[in-house]
């Protein structure tokens, strides 16, 4: 593949393919609640045998200002990131404003087996880690053959 795109892994090539596909076909239907790929905060989701692990990359937020809630199988992460740079005036010039500021809300559709009573959330180094337990009945188990 061309080096022009600095594509160094399979995922970024898939992203590019997906972007080209959506440009041509107008995009495949995706969840009505999922925003564009570059929404803030960015989220990674993984699962283990007994939990669903969600990490939101949300640096520079006061943990007490973060609002995490679960309602009807939807996990919502909301909050606001305030502007840190002082407003430009006569003596201050702004050269770059790439960091997200403002209020945000991201919603994750939890699978059926998620247990809303077993949720833990912690905020460290600008990452919000949320662990949602799975119901006992949905955990993998070996079936004894009789």
């Amino acid at each position, binding site marked *: 593949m061309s080096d022009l795109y600095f594509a160094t892994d399979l995922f970024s090539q898939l992203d590019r393919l997906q972007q080209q596909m959506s440009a041509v076909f107008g995009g495949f239907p995706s969840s009505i609640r999922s925003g564009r790929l570059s929404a803030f905060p960015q989220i990674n989701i*993984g699962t283990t045998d007994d939990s669903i692990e969600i990490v939101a990359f949300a640096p520079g937020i006061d943990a007490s200002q973060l609002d995490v809630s679960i309602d009807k199988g939807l996990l919502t992460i909301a909050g606001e990131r305030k502007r840190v740079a002082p407003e430009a005036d006569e003596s201050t010039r702004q050269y770059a404003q790439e960091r997200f500021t403002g209020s945000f809300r991201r919603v994750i559709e939890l699978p059926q087996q998620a247990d809303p009573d077993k949720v833990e959330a912690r905020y460290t180094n600008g990452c919000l880690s949320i662990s949602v337990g799975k119901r006992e009945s949905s955990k993998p188990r070996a079936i004894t053959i009789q």
Partner: protein
Amino acid sequence: MSDTTEVVQKEQQPVARGEREPAEQRATLTPPVDVIENAHGVTLWADLPGVSKEKLEVRVHDGNLHIEAEASVPTRAGLRLQHAEIRAPHFSRSFTLGAEFDTSKIEANLQDGVLKLVIPRREEARPRRIEVNVG
């Protein structure tokens, strides 16, 4: 793979790498920054989520400022990644610094995944008002 970085770290697939590609060319993210300048100097903020103080390196070399960092997010053992918007745990960004900055007095502060760098201007390079005497 029972380590601490799995939520962000995904093994590079051998099929995705060019065969002649040098091994050190890895996927890095360019962190977004805010940069302002005032009479004192330049202040820069960079988003480095998941980066701890130990995994952050800020270097000045030949008038270039390099920021290199590695994110590490504690995760449970046996995690299978299902959806990823951040796919590389390495952050890297460089800037050139003019000679008017005093690189020996750069202050760096990392809090909640945001790096704040204060790069002061040299004393003699600060703006000054020159009084005009009427002769």
